[in-house]
């Protein structure tokens, strides 16, 4: 099984989620993160004290899939999260040793 971590823009989350669901992915977990990259931050000024906010709010999407579903999931995310502007984000793929569904204790592919 593979874990896909995708850092995407907030306002793309709904679209990506729907696309993944349609493509048959049944579970995912998201969290709020702040990202730093090629996309420039912005300046904020508070009573003359100016400083740069380098970290921009992003959403991290974690999807665990069977190896066979990997490519489809990655493609779905890539195509729906893309705007073509700097700051679209990254996808990281890694391998999992095991997946367990807490409710049933099921392991492996069936647990995804």
């Amino acid at each position: 099984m593979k874990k896909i971590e995708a850092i995407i823009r907030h306002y793309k989350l709904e679209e990506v989620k729907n696309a993944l669901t349609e493509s048959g992915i049944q579970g995912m977990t998201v969290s709020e993160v702040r990202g730093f990259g090629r996309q420039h931050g912005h300046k904020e000024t508070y009573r003359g004290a100016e400083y740069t906010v380098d970290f921009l709010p992003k959403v991290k999407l974690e999807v665990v899939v069977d190896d066979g579903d990997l490519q489809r999931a990655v493609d779905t995310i890539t195509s729906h999260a893309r705007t073509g502007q700097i700051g679209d984000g990254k996808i990281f793929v890694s391998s999992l040793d095991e997946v367990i569904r807490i409710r049933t204790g099921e392991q492996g592919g069936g647990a995804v």
Partner: protein
Amino acid sequence: MKTQFIVRWLLASTLLLVMSAVSFSQEAAEGTPVSPAGAPMPAPGIPIPGLTTDTSGPVVVAASEINSGDTAWMLVSSALVLMMTAPGLALFYGGLVRKKNILGVMMQCIILMGMMSTLWVVVGYSLAFDSSIAGGFVGGFKMVMLNGMNISGNGLTLIHKLTIPDLLFMVYQMMFFIITPGLICGAFAERMKFSAMVLFCALWGLLIYCPVAHWVWAGDGMFNHANQDAKFAALDFAGGTVVHLISGASALLCAIMLGKRLGFGQDPMPPHNLTYTFIGATMLWVGWFGFNAGSAGAANAQAVSAFVATHLAAATGTLTWAGIEWFKRGKPSILGACSGCVAGLVCVTPAAGYVTPTSGMILGIVAGVVCYFACTTIKSKFGYDDSLDAFGVHGVGGFAGALLTGIFASAEIAGEGKGGLIEGNSQQFVNQLVACGASLALAVVGTFIILKVVDALVGLRASQEDEIQGLDLSQHGEEGYIISY
């Protein structure tokens, strides 16, 4: 820990007790007969009006019976000024600190509401409004514990020439005694020890606020315009000097003597909740009507004048500060708008009740410009860490207001003999300068000594570890927002 606490508490309490003791013995010794009506002034008959109403003003009130309309307005005004401290100031300041210090700010405000109120009854009111001792430096001790005051609330003395019970005048003034040290907290926010803050504010209130209030507002105060013997009769309608100038100046000294916050200049320290700052600022705006229009002491024409000038100064202050930002950095900010409204309110405080609506608008514009300049260019040039710009807004705005009052006061509104420079009365401008200078001198010297004393007793600054953890947890063992359960 506990023994330490007790020791320090005892030290502080002793100070207060000594003062009270002195007062009673003094009184006993002098045997001053206190009139049943509670008038503590030695020579009744001689008009020694306080506050801002006097016989020469446009409204002459017969001080012979309680007026229900005036009483209603002053009850409301007292409530409004309390609301300024909390939730008003607590939110305005609280939003500007980092999340880990929000409760620290709020705690300062509510403890001041408790402590300064108590001190005012015990001895503060007497120090401020009793007849002068020590060559006019401060009021005496004859009204300690409201001694001699008609506590049924029914009495009216000639002293204040008001148509409201003396007790109401006392409690209205109490609210000023609460908020003034509260303003200073903006300068040492995020780093002062709680115990130090408590001790500092108590001493500052008694040793600095009370004398200055006495000079400017007591019947025989040396700068009180209504005191015919005053050589430098100053105009300070609602506390430009008494409240803002001296708290602002003391704030600057605090900021310098405590030193900068850890990481100042390197780590970003943005306001953690500008929505609170906004709520606080607008509550201050609303509450300030009690502060300024209430300072008329009655629901009369002067109160209305003060109300209008106050509102307009806030309005133009808001537009000015936001406008400068819009011009200089392309975007007006909400913090700028809020700062501008407070700057306008500060600046019009001594002038409200003495100036025309148009002058009120001008004062707001000037306040916006000079306070913007003070909070940005000047602060960054000198590099002191006045965390929330207590000096930049209150010190600078209060000073500007005091001087502008000497310029723009209009006899048509303020009453005969109270015109300013634009009406050819240049003496008034000089008087304003003198009153400011004397108040500034006491504020700076006094604050310096008090800080040294407090430092010796309990230490001024929170430990480095405590500061990093935040005052909420380190001083109070609590967190502001817990959203994980």
